């Protein structure tokens, strides 16, 4: 058996091509293993409402039992599509969010609910800053997001 991800992703994709919450759009899903989603933050002055932030989802064979890998992509051609500034988002696009972590993940989440979580995490942000040690982390990190042990030191953000 080739894992359960195929069927489930097909169904999610079919659903997501219908109606999505405001500010969330599907950009492309070329092969079911990698999806691109665009986010807009509608009511936070830190993020102009016309800026798009692109998320890249990578699914393993065991999705949804295993969490997908979700990172922000920097689209250098368009400065308005940078990686959003947030104390839990490193400048290389890696997001520190408990539900994307092996311990925080639950198979009842889906692409839409992850997008909503990230969107609301940005919408409620008040700090115009990167995580502490961002430069050092971006320079030295070679691990995949799922293998990184984030310290959830600041649950208030």
């Amino acid at each position: 058996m080739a894992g359960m991800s195929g069927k489930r992703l097909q169904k999610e994709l079919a659903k997501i091509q219908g109606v999505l919450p405001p500010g969330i759009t599907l950009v492309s899903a070329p092969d079911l293993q990698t999806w691109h989603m665009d986010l807009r933050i509608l009511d936070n002055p830190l993020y102009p409402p016309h800026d798009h932030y692109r998320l890249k989802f990578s699914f393993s064979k065991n999705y949804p039992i295993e969490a997908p890998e979700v990172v922000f992509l920097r689209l250098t051609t368009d400065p308005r599509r940078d990686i959003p500034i947030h104390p839990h988002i490193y400048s290389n696009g890696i997001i520190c969010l408990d539900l994307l972590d092996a311990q925080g993940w639950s198979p009842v989440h889906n692409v839409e609910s992850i997008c909503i979580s990230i969107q609301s995490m940005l919408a409620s942000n008040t700090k115009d800053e990167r995580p502490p040690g961002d430069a050092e982390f971006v320079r030295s990190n070679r691990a995949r997001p799922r293998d990184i042990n984030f310290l959830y030191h600041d649950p208030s953000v």
Partner: protein
Amino acid sequence: MASYAAEQLKEKGNVAFRNGEYLEAEDFYSQAIHRYSRNSLIFTNRANVRLKLQRYDGVVDDSLKSIEIQGQGGQNHKAFYFLGMPCDILSGLRRLSIALCRHAQAQLSLNHPNEALSSALTAYNQVLHPQPAAKISPKDLETFSAFVLKCKKQKFASRERERLRRRGDLCAELEVTLDSQRQRDQSEITLQLQRGDVGNIAASERAAEIRSAFDHKVAELHTIFAAADPANHKAREIPDHIIDTITFEPMHDPVMTKTGHSYERATIYEHLKRSPTDPLTREPLTIDELRPNFGLKAACEEFWDSGASEWIIDW
């Protein structure tokens, strides 16, 4: 005659078996098979003696061989019995399940979804309730569960095809009957016209009447059959309550968590292996705390037995 010699050896084997000389009996049966390998009874007998000798792998092989010889429509209850036994086969159990699955696969390719489903279910139950020493890989439950689902879908699809085929015939037959009725009425008019009972105008009016009545009836017939055909209706959705919220597949063996949410057994087992928590509430949860949800299972069965056909394409 090879088959006669085989029959003789088989008889010797039967005698040895009755006397409790199992090794000798197996030997006679093997010789018989060597002479003539198309007699399914010899395989079933050897399966039986191998059961006594606790050579379970052989039991499975011989039973499958016996079923294979009898081929389509064979009533090989004995062989199926050996395969489906709730036996104390320990090391052979996983093999048995795999063999059953292979058998089910063969039945599927022969378009025998009923037999395939029963084998698949047996295999699923074998891995679900393994004997303590059985070597069941945790992945097996998921595999066999998916296979049961596949068999169910096939069974469903084949019944639907059969229904459509029969119904298609009925529709055509009714149309032919209506048409012959129309022809009779028509020739009746022609006769009356020839006898001079009716005038030209009246005759052509009656003919037009008959024609339009016929057309109307045929149209009506087609409408009725189309209405009875779910394929012509808007896609019927699978009710949400029988969908496993993890795989998005319809369930066939739902289990309930402490919080009252139900999941397909194989999926929630897979999740609990990685994270012993309730997927929705994140409270601690273990396999022992799951309970079968018989009510929901009945609802699932009802769905599988219902006439919804659209989802086969969608799901």
